[in-house]
């Protein structure tokens, strides 16, 4: 006893029982396996996919005569989908969160809305596909089209926007609000000039999460927006939106499953991976920059 106190050992340096050693071993082994698997998968995607990603791959459409493959139509469709879904969904989501956090009077009402939001978040994408088809394609008579896909994705992504904006608003100190109101500002003015700028980081994070979700979406879009896009997009945006089209994920599924064209599929996977990397970096960048306030 006196010995151990006079040495420089910490109290945590006890002799580990053999069971402990076993546990450590098991944890290290498991983690090593899992992490090795993770690294392996990422490298398979990059190794098999990057060779296929050439400039013509990215910028042309498939040419059945020349037998070349290009994913430009799918890239444009994905961009359109992201852009227009955000245009609709961000205002509604942010507005909803503002209502929940700033304006709602009854706690019960808030809980109802929050329950609805969480329910929406938990619904699998194939059900959004069925719902989107029944409502947007048939009922609204939009037929199988990008616009139907955009509307369906709006509902899919809405819970993400509401939730992240809510968190961001909650993080704004009460003093900001009270200060503005105390100086005579009206509520909406205060919201617009004080709250929104302060919660910008959270809102941007929500937007990036939503983009991530949209890029991954495949089942719903397959049902609602159609299969593989073969032709260069026409200049008219409205026309493009009212026709069917595939996003990158849907294109990947088609090339891999229906065409058995694994090279192209891996090429698309590599492109998607690069997009995810960029989105992740963007999130870190935003978190870093806006934290320095």
């Amino acid at each position, binding site marked *: 006893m006196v010995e151990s106190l006079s040495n420089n050992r910490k109290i945590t340096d006890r002799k580990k029982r053999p069971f402990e050693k076993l546990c450590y071993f098991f944890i290290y082994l498991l983690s090593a396996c899992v992490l090795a698997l993770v690294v392996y998968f990422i490298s398979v995607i990059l190794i098999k996919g990057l060779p296929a990603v050439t400039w013509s791959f990215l910028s042309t459409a498939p*040419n*059945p*005569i020349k037998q070349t493959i290009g994913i430009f139509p799918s890239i444009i469709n994905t961009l359109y989908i992201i*852009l227009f879904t955000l245009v609709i969904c961000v205002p509604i989501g942010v507005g909803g969160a503002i209502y929940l956090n700033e304006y709602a009077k009854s706690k019960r009402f808030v809980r109802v809305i929050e329950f609805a939001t969480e329910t929406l978040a938990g619904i699998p994408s194939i059900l959004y596909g069925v719902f989107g088809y029944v409502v947007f394609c048939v009922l609204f008579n939009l037929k199988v089209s990008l616009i139907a896909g955009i509307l369906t994705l709006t509902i899919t992504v809405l819970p993400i926007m509401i939730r992240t904006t809510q968190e961001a608003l909650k993080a704004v100190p009460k003093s900001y609000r009270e200060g503005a109101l105390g100086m005579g500002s009206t509520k909406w003015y205060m919201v617009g000039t004080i709250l929104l700028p302060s919660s910008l980081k959270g809102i941007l994070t929500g937007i990036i999460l939503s983009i991530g979700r949209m890029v991954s979406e495949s089942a719903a879009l397959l049902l609602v927006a159609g299969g593989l896009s073969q032709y260069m997009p026409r*200049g008219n945006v409205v026309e493009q939106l009212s026709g069917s089209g595939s996003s990158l994920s849907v294109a990947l599924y088609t090339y891999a499953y229906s*065409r058995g064209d694994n090279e192209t599929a891996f090429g698309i996977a590599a492109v998607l991976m690069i997009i995810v990397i960029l989105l992740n970096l963007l999130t870190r960048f935003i978190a870093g920059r806006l934290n320095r306030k």
Partner: protein
Amino acid sequence: MKKITGLLIAVLMVATLFAGCSDGSTGGADSNLSGVVKTGGSTSVEKVMNALIYQFQNENRDVKIDYEPNGSGDGIKNAISGLYEIGHSSRGLKTDGSEDGGLKATAYAIDGIAIVTNKGNGVDNLTKEQLSGIYTGAITNWSEVGGNDAPITVITRESGSGTRDAFAEIIGLEKGGSNIIASANVADNTGAIQTQVSSNPNAIGYMSFSDVDTSKVNTVQYEGAAISTDTLKDGIYKLKREFYLLTKAGATLSPVAQAFVDFVMGDAGQQIVADNKLLPIR
């Protein structure tokens, strides 16, 4: 600083809107035709239809033909309801009344149904009894039909597929293939069958001949006849069905749709049909 990044992002997003305007089209012959025609239906016709549409759109730059490969059933249903101006089907209309909707079916190609097996599979001929035995589960091992000792993996199209219906009818299965063995793997389009067969050494499947890529799969002789455009034409190879364009009977099509139908039935269109390993209808 935030305002500038926000502005940059907005500009970037608007720029993508105009990225789609890179078509560079400057009109071609018959460029007085313009408009969008909505079509859709069978997945089996996808390859030849893509080639036909590509060529037609090349000659008529202001035309866009939408083709959604959602299946023959969808093609028929939506042609009846008017959602598609032209529906595509890889089987004839049902005669039991469920598909009465005043449709006119114009056959434009004859397609062979190829029996495909893995590249490594040695079996090169199957009779009608053997084939129906395999598909109903009566025959379960390749050794029973002259191959290796390995269990057969049966792959079929999904219920409702035009190809499945045609296949079932010709080899004598019950209507729609309802007695196909329950543990048969289901692939939901013709290309998927090829994908699965090419990666599974013991698989057998059936698919549209025009989609067969012989570098990926073997075609098996049916009743002693190998599948080719010649044996299809001479009627020696018996597994086949027609591809149809479905339009509303008695109604006039839009100029673009009519032009497309004429194109498909004309010399140029039929040539494309032949180039795709299908039998032209004329």
